[in-house]
């Protein structure tokens, strides 16, 4: 195969896996094109789809609430207890943990839903867009500052960024380093989720592309593709868990700097 053809293939893959929704064209498109499924190929639309789904789910859970939870309410309770016992309590302790619980529940289920919806054919993965994950990381940064102020007052900010018991001349240096590490943690969270989601989709798409390129000869690749798809289902859960766990660890380190 010639180099030009290869370049075309790589550009084709990139074009189909990375949808850049955010330009005016992408926003205007739904209003004058009728084919509805085309909408779901835009990450910005998918964010709202996930939001609407979550609101509907929350409404359904609220409706099915009884004194002894059963059905949907029991599922929701198991989920919240899982987040509380596995993620929030080990990092915050009971008192502060109770107040940050709802934030981490929201974070986990939003990432999980957008990862899973992205695996349905024709739907785009909202978390496979760097803008969405950067937004999530920004929310994490803001939330950790709010949690620090809420727990210790405005002095907590100083305690979170400058460890106590330092010589006077060392304090600004340490403060600067702590701020840098705070920002780089958020950046690492952004890139981890984005790269994992995008890489999985590129792999699946490339495997399917082999079939398109070589025809019947590449049919056995289908098996590998299905294997990758199942692995991506696992990765969707794992990455939602890792994002929530790491952000709770980082936030817990800021709220309780002495631990």
């Amino acid at each position: 195969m010639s180099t030009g053809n290869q370049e075309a293939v790589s550009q084709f893959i990139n074009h189909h896996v990375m949808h850049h929704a955010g330009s005016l064209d992408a926003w205007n498109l739904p209003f004058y094109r009728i084919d509805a499924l085309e909408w779901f190929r835009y990450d910005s639309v998918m964010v709202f789809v996930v939001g609407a789904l979550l609101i509907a789910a929350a409404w359904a859970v609220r409706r099915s609430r009884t004194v002894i939870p059963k059905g949907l309410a029991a599922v929701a309770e198991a989920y919240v207890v899982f987040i509380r016992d596995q993620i929030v309590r080990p990092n915050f302790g009971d008192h502060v943990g109770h107040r940050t619980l709802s934030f981490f529940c929201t974070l986990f289920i939003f990432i999980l839903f957008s990862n899973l919806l992205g695996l349905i054919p024709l739907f785009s993965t909202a978390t496979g867009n760097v803008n969405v994950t950067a937004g999530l990381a920004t929310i994490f940064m803001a939330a950790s500052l709010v949690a620090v102020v809420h727990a210790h007052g405005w002095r907590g900010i100083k305690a979170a960024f400058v460890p106590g018991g330092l010589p006077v001349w060392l304090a600004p240096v340490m403060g600067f380093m702590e701020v840098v590490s705070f920002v780089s943690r958020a950046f690492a969270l952004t890139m981890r989720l984005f790269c994992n989601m995008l890489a999985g989709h590129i792999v699946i798409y490339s495997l399917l592309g082999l079939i398109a390129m070589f025809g019947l000869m590449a049919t056995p690749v289908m098996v590998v593709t299905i294997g990758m798809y199942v692995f991506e289902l696992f990765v969707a859960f794992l990455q939602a868990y890792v994002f929530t766990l790491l952000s709770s660890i980082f936030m817990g380190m800021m709220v309780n700097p002495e631990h």
Partner: protein
Amino acid sequence: MMIPLAEVSAALGAGIVMIAAALGIGGVCAVGLQCMARQPEIQPKLQTAMIIGAAFIEGAALFALVICLMKG
């Protein structure tokens, strides 16, 4: 047939990143499993710590992979 040098280096870089990441995550999982076998009672804590370590390595590897992808 001329292959641009940038593509070759990007592909080689991706391979090297994969080797390094596999070594790192393999090490983490090997030690984690060993510790779990020795002390099954602290398995949940170990598993969490293992996943965190693997996630850090994975994140670093993915930074490099994205650079390879962008240049390739």
